[in-house]
């Protein structure tokens, strides 16, 4: 492999890592960035999506298996999210740190449930045939570069979900309601917005996206009861670095983290790359305490 191929390959790996982080972080950007709910069980929604996609590929065979798996993991995780919202989150709006603790409890329960149902060793989702193999470049400057189809697929899926969410939030009436509810619940209500419904829909959309992320992740890694744990801390970092409430910022942050990791991993170990990543984030926060993109406000409470 030539240098160009290695650099291009790591660039691709960085983008691929970024897309996985982003897919995980998008749901958080909704629940955390817009609703101020720190959902520590977000990772478990990922896990649920993964297991559902595992079940789906067991139930349905043939070309439709994987699309069905995506659908099922989205719907299932969204439904679970709705349940969570109604039973726990609803009572905790405006107390972000408490949502953190309560959802941590939820995550423990979900992990244990998964362990009881599926066992502690991971299960494997077999990727559909059309995602097997990779784009390989045999000649020229980039000879030796190979880009697995699964990773390309995940990048595309992420772009699609990101696009849909951006349109939803910025362009639709629902997006407007959602932002309004988060900023002033009572006033939104007094203007005729059914806040409960908005909360429910948005929260479960966030978990639904996490479910999708889980299904995507299952293509490259096993689904285990603790799979969420390993991603959720980084996903939160991405949301923080990006700035609350800005999907654009979240995207930039994911790219930053992904490319940084892919780059540093080449020169040091993965463990140390993680440590350096955190050092970078703390330094970054020195310059941009509220993330890459943030909203100013004159209100003293937020200053």
């Amino acid at each position: 492999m030539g240098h160009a191929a290695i650099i291009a390959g790591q660039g691709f790996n960085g983008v691929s890592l970024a897309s996985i982080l982003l897919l995980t972080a998008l749901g958080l950007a909704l629940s955390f960035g817009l609703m101020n709910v720190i959902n520590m069980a977000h990772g478990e929604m990922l896990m649920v999506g993964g297991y559902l996609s595992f079940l789906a590929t067991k139930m349905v065979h043939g070309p439709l298996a994987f699309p069905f798996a995506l659908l099922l993991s989205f719907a299932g995780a969204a439904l679970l999210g709705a349940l969570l919202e109604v039973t726990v989150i609803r009572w905790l709006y405006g107390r972000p740190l408490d949502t953190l603790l309560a959802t941590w409890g939820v995550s423990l329960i979900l992990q244990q449930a998964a362990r009881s149902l599926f066992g502690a060793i991971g299960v494997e989702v077999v990727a559909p045939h059309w995602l097997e193999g990779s784009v390989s470049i045999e000649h020229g400057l980039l000879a030796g570069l190979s880009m697995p189809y699964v990773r390309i697929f995940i990048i595309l899926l992420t772009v699609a979900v990101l696009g849909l969410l951006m349109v939803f939030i910025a362009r639709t009436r629902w997006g407007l309601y959602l932002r309004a509810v988060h900023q002033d619940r009572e006033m939104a209500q007094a203007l005729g917005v059914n806040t409960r419904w908005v909360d429910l829909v948005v929260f479960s959309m966030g978990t639904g996206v996490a479910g999708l992320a889980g299904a995507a992740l299952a293509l490259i890694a096993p689904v285990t009861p603790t799979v969420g744990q390993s991603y959720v801390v980084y996903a939160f970092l991405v949301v923080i670095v990006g700035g609350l409430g800005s999907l654009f910022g979240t995207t930039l942050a994911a790219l930053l983290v992904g490319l940084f990791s892919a780059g540093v991993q080449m020169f040091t170990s993965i463990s140390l790359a993680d440590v350096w990543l955190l050092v970078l984030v703390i330094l970054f926060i020195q310059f941009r305490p509220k993330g890459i993109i943030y909203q100013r406000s004159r209100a003293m409470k937020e200053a």
Partner: protein
Amino acid sequence: MGTPLLSVENVTVSFNGFNALDGMSLHLMPTSIRVLIGPNGAGKSTLLDTIIGHVRPSAGRVVFKGHEITRMDEYKIVRRGICRKFQAPGILDNLTVAENLNLAARRHRECWRSFSVGLNKEVRAQVERVLTLVGLNDRKHALAGQLSHGQKQWLEIGMVVASDAELLLLDEPAAGMSHDESAQTAALIRELAKQHSLLVIDHDMAFVDQLDAPVSVMHMGRMLREGTLEEIRNDPQIAAVYLGRVKEVSVA
């Protein structure tokens, strides 16, 4: 004329290209009242923000007691002797009324001087005095967040009084108050002016009248006119941008 307590010199503040303050200047003498009026969005509150260090001007400077304070941290500016009442009540909702006042009344705000257990007698006396002054004596132990809007206004005025700072900045102190209460507030401000300097913003002309002090009119981030209220009232330009059709103020 002595040296001004506060000088705002040619201050410009801009937000994404929009100049909220545009070469604004103002000088304030010790133990005096200055009233600041002007249309909504003229930049009055932004001026206070600038003085207290909450926003950084892109040009110009602020001098307080002979020292430039333009780029200082907020808390350092405040410690030099400035206290501000905000336009939307800026009180600590989950502290009691008395605790809010305590916080404002404490003289030593450095961290390393905060490790003594008892409350200073002077501070306590000051708090009691202020409580009576603003009529919140019987709500002393209520959480500030549970006050009505008007009561919150009074509490914040109380905090400014308790701070005993040399320069008091009052952003719409009479808003939400009844006639009687505005009159009370005006009397209080005149009393305070014996020992402090006050910069008062308000839109209530009856209240401004009672302050009996020179008036500065701001418009579009600049000083438009300074003079007595009478002069201001008779200025057609100010009537156009601010006062509207001039109406007799009914003095009850």
